[in-house]
């Protein structure tokens, strides 16, 4: 197979966890809650998924378990920021740090283990979750922009006061969004430890949660753009490795920094027009909501 095709294929694999996490974060942020704890959630889901996969040898169950674990912690996070009105940024950071430590702690005895891997490679033979991610993108797009429930969700994100005045239970909707979004973020984390690199090691998510956060801004909170961004990032990640292998005359460190520099560039380009951001960003993002009752 030509090298380019293989590169594209690997890019898709590399970008899939980013896509799943970004989709989950889009659901969160569309409801007005920003969750900086994505990294911690992915780590928790990764160790849970790995442990379940080891015990049951069932990939699907493991992925679901990872998603469930992340959903539980998201519910806790959601409770703090939605019902107790804790500062969203600080609480998200706390979740990241805590998830990091907890997953390392729980995972101590799992570093020696490994899962048997099934072979998947080539442009058209990926793990089923890769295809599922694409379907989820389409589904989420439809949900957000063509369904009533999605409209309500967006309304909650744009103006929770108005939504409440219309009689919608804003806090419940936000909580549901945080839990559902958290589950997707967890699915991404479990994908990394169960499918991508079937091992467990502390910190194995290595910043993917943060990159997913950047991707939601890059995607201006639209699922289809998130797909583009995730695959693009995956492409740059794999490209720099290919360039190294080819002996390109650039310092290795510069190549390694490429994906992160690209993220900054993308953020700058996207954010430059404040009107574009303002037009797309959920207005109540990050702000606490007091129902007043």
């Amino acid at each position, binding site marked *: 197979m030509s090298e380019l095709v293989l590169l594209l294929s690997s890019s898709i694999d590399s970008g899939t966890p980013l896509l799943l996490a970004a989709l989950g974060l889009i659901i969160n942020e569309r409801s007005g809650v920003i969750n900086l704890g994505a990294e911690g959630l992915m780590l928790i889901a990764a160790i849970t998924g790995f442990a379940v996969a080891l015990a049951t040898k069932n990939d699907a169950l493991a992925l679901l378990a990872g998603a469930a674990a992340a959903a539980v912690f998201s519910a806790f996070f959601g409770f703090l920021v939605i019902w107790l009105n804790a500062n969203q940024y600080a609480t998200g950071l706390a979740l990241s740090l805590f998830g990091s430590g907890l997953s390392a702690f729980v995972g101590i005895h799992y570093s020696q283990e490994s899962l048997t891997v099934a072979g998947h*490679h080539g442009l058209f033979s990926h793990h089923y979750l890769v295809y599922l991610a694409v379907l989820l993108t389409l589904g989420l797009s439809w949900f957000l922009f063509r369904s009533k429930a999605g409209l309500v969700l967006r309304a909650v994100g744009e103006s929770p006061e108005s939504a409440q005045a219309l009689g919608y239970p804003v806090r419940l909707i936000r909580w549901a969004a945080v839990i559902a979004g958290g589950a997707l973020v967890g699915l991404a984390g479990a994908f990394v430890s169960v499918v991508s690199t079937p091992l467990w090691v502390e910190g194995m998510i290595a910043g993917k949660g943060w990159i997913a956060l950047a991707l939601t801004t890059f995607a201006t909170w639209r699922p289809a753009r998130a797909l583009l961004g995730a695959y693009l990032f995956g492409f740059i990640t794999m490209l720099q490795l290919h360039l190294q292998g080819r*002996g390109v005359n650039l310092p290795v460190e510069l190549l390694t920094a490429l994906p992160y520099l690209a993220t900054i560039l993308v953020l700058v380009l996207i954010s430059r027009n404040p009107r574009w951001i303002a037009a797309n960003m959920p207005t109540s993002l990050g702000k606490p909501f007091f129902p007043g009752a």
Partner: protein
Amino acid sequence: MPRFLDRATPACIASSLLALAFMTLPACSKKPSGDAAPSATPAPPAVEPKATEPKADAPLKVAFAYVGPVGDAGWTFAHDKARKEAEAAFAGKVKTSFVENVPEAADAERVIRDMVDQGNTLIFGTTFGYMEPMLKVASDNPKVHFEHATGYKTAANLRTYDSRTYEGAYLAGVVAGSMTKSKTLGVVGSIPIPEVIRNIDSFTLGAQSVTPEIKTKVVWVGKWFDPPKEGEAAQALLDQGADVLMQNTDSSAVLQTAEKAGKFAFGWDSDMSKFGPHAHLASAIINWAPYYQKAIKDALDGSWKTGQVWWGVKDGAIDLVSLSDKVPAATKAKIEELKKGLKDGSFTIWKGPIKDQAGKEVLKVDEKGEDKMLLGINFYVKGVEGKLPSGK
């Protein structure tokens, strides 16, 4: 974040002081146990709490500082395995302990000093980055013996030890050369220190001894241990046509990636065959047990001397194990022959003519590479593609 502490600050200070005082009470009432509080008067040399001298029949306390987790299935795992074997071999006479995930540099000094405080008189530091901290602690504790792995500075009570991993790499290369169909090999490199470059070179030389026209591609991860990156690097190498992979990193991610893709790879540092049953060709392992047992014996019978030790196949420190059934019998026989040659000195890996990437001859015909030259290797041999990340 609300900041009304401006007026509450005095109360905050008061309550915190109270809490701290409460916590330190137990400390005040405790008798200093062997750690006499040093006075503040400047007095060279450093005021170190004296480590209690071991009594004649008390077991020798030996401590190990690991840079990674014992569960890494690679470098640290190999050290810990040897530690356990040594403790068992000297049953009762030796008591070992370890600290894992000790970062290289500043924090290491504290950990090593604490090991000394805890009464350990033989301390092993298993990574290069502990060199400076160990030297400092060694100079303050002349009665304690220090052993530093993969370093190059010694002291009267600090010696260095290392294993000739390049021999394992060469043997793996021979197997790789006989198994590759695409004539392209891939190596996932960790950090571009001489040891790793030497291993890449030796791997290539070994493969070239079987198939002279092979090429080796290299991708650098920048860390010793980063499974997701290692996996991606392995994938990139496979995408570029490599069909046999080697690694100098510490996890089994490379092997697993090869397994997923239906290609081949080697285990490194420890036997990794279980991580990739179809892909695994062999594992180049390090066996620290013979050395650790020798070092402990030296400490026990008082014959410990400083020096620089570099052990290989000959001393049982390096081996290529678990060769897969897919490897042809002829190759297996050749490996045995080479091991014998290394053991009895009749075979030398780094013997000229060897050219570097640019075509310059680094070893003339029949010239043997001295240890000193090998220790500082900073060039790729011909056949390795890519640029050394040396910035020059």
